């Protein structure tokens, strides 16, 4: 689905969104007030410029618009694979972006992500997965790594990986698997203003400082071990 179509469906009351390369930043009108809209498009490979462009916009919004909600539109093929990017500590810039998303949460800005096409590894970790809640459109690609590269790292035949990706939810690409495991709330047929208003309203009504994903993955049956293991390490109250 084209970015412009998605924006028109989500924000029929109007939006002014700028595109610099593959970086999206801007504002949109909703019945709940103005929201900040930002993210990436066209399967962006996250590099320093994109990460710092997004973090700058988050910091600016936090500085000037208290509690304004953030809507992240996620389409990233992962981190840029380049020596010059690594030379300047790309993990550092992605961590900086993630910390800015987290700062906004702590200062009372609700946030949600919508995966519009691709959500892959480091690109997804740096902002999409940091939002309070994550949603995905139908037919989106949510995954960790190109299977050829994965084959080289794991020393498992490429054909075998393709076969595994066909049926193993813990391994197979796909937003539905992330719903089962608690990291994505729901897969949407189509983006709509009604959905957005509903999701933002729900966010404003609950305390989102706590990371709920282990809990959700447990209750949905897709990630049964994480929650009890994490709990077993925390001492019982009063001990």
């Amino acid at each position, binding site marked *: 689905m084209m970015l412009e179509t998605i924006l028109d469906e989500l924000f029929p009351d109007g939006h002014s969104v700028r595109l610099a390369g593959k970086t999206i930043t801007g504002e949109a009108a909703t019945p709940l007030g103005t929201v900040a809209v930002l993210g990436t498009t066209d399967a962006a490979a996250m590099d320093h410029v994109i990460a710092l462009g997004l973090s700058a916009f988050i910091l600016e919004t936090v500085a000037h618009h208290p509690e304004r909600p953030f809507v992240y539109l996620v389409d990233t093929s992962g981190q840029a694979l380049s020596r010059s990017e690594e030379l300047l500590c790309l993990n550092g810039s992605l961590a900086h972006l993630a910390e800015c998303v987290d700062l906004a949460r702590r200062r009372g800005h609700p946030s949600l992500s919508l995966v519009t096409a691709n959500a892959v590894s*480091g690109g997804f970790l740096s902002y999409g997965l940091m939002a309070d809640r994550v949603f995905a459109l139908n037919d989106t690609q949510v995954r960790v790594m190109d299977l050829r590269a994965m084959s080289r790292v794991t020393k498992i035949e490429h054909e075998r990986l393709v076969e595994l990706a066909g049926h193993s939810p813990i391994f197979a690409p796909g937003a539905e698997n992330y719903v089962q495991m608690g990291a994505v709330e729901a897969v949407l047929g189509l983006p709509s203003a009604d959905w957005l208003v509903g999701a933002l309203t729900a966010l404003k009504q609950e305390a989102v400082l706590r990371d709920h994903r282990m809990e959700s993955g447990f209750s949905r049956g897709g990630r049964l071990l994480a929650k009890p293991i994490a709990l077993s*390490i925390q001492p019982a109250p009063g001990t």
Partner: protein
Amino acid sequence: MGGAVGEIHGAKIVGLLRRALLEEPRAVLFLIDSGGVRLHEANAGLIAISEIMRAVLEVRAGGIPVLALVGGSCGAFGGMGIVAKLCSAVLISEEGRLALSGPEVIETVAGVEEFDSKDRALVWRVTGGKHRYLMGDCAELVEDDVASFREAAVACVTAVTHDVSTLESLQARQHRLEQRIERFAGFNDGLDVWRSLGIEQPESVPMLDRGATVALKGRMEA
């Protein structure tokens, strides 16, 4: 398995970080030796890393510093490279490495001319502890033994007393990072960066021992 993080590893780390919030120690020492997500359980691993990221930031927001110690043979790569940079400070040895994509992955996808993963000297000039320290991405360069890491960690715990990120502190870092990508745009070897930093004989840097490297950094900052 290269310190890779799957569902269970992630849950244990998150559990420990949450426990730190309850017990309120002076600091958390996070020993990282990891290639990142355990690819055999790719989705669960990615989510686990994201949960660790949130948990580290929660501990720091609770006023407890988290120090990353990177001195193993795997380094800190992939999602764990991001986690390391979310900590209050990174302590690294010369043998340690810190980056996002492993050189092998870059070579497989972008070609050997982009990154020759067999060229160990190059790999260290791009991702190694010395380079990260000279660039300010790691707070301390530590001798590659346990006693030195312990000593450096104790000194760091004593020095870092208040480490909660604020709008102002992140704005300041934003400014530094923007200036840096402008200044070093297009560079692709540590040698060029070090030369540009004013180091007269950049080719000698890989040969310097820890003490000489720390002294060199001191002179750069003076």
